[in-house]
């Protein structure tokens, strides 16, 4: 009996852990706006890559902001999982490294219409943040 349980555990233990990981990832996709690309192997090539998301900050150049490593990292994470929590985190990072005391930050997602080839961007999330 003990041997049967052990064999079952060895046969199905690792796949069960994989299922748990996939369920957590799918939960994050639906609830926390995680990109389907994250995880690798079971979600890649299902939507335009999250690097195609665009961060826009009114009155600031994002390209010059990403010279700062911590801002670059929080922007990368924001593109990967564009939700309110990560927007706030990115906004705090930007305010800490600039003289501004308020910020309007947005994340835009690319969309394309395959019937007429029209490519545009839609607003995913935005935040007005004050120090």
């Amino acid at each position, binding site marked *: 009996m003990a041997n049967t349980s052990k064999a079952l555990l060895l*046969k199905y233990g690792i796949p069960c852990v*994989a299922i748990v990981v996939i369920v957590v990832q799918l939960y994050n996709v639906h609830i926390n706006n995680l990109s389907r690309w994250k995880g690798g192997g079971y979600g890649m090539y*299902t*939507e335009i890559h999250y690097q195609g998301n665009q961060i826009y900050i009114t009155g600031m150049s994002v390209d010059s902001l990403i010279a700062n490593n911590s801002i670059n990292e929080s922007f990368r994470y924001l593109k990967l999982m564009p939700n309110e929590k990560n927007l706030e985190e990115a906004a705090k990072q930007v305010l800490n490294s600039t003289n501004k005391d308020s910020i309007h930050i947005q994340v835009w997602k690319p969309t394309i219409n395959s019937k007429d080839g029209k490519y545009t961007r839609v607003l995913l999330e935005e935040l007005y943040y004050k120090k």
Partner: protein
Amino acid sequence: MLVFMVLAVIFYTYHKRRDILQKNIQILLVVVILASVVQKLESSQFMSGEFYYYMINRGTLFSFFINFFSESLEVTKSNYELLKTLHNTDPNMGKSVVMKDVIPNLGKISIVYAWLTVIMEFSVAILLLLKPKSALTHILFSIMILGILCARFETAFMALLAICGIILCKNQKLRLLFTMIVIGCVTLIVTKIGYH
């Protein structure tokens, strides 16, 4: 996938039972491919063909074939420039650009291709679950791997899938095919042509 495969191999050094290793790999493959099918079915961008349409017109899928034809290459380059120009504008202005098609009727082709991808992946997953040692299963599995490699040099992941094929398959010719795929993928990775 790689992490779980490595775990299965580490456990194999403990139990030394090939049947358990094969079961681990079989179920892992089924779970990963089915999860991929679910993600595709849930993604409106994928099922409407918009994802493939974008990727092909950008030259990031089938680039190996597109690069052979100078006209198609020019189209992908011009599409890239269009997107770059748009990216430099304020998205609040609501501007858009119109991408040119690499081949005629790409919109319709992309929808068919998206559905074929889902049907193929689902069939392979079900066959791997029900008939993991059947030659038909592994023929379809190898076609799926080669099909993905034709679309894009996802060499590291495809090598991983081919290694799973070697572990599960009994047919010597098909095992040789999987081995050739692994060698080919590793060569492409080493020469920095493939992705790792």
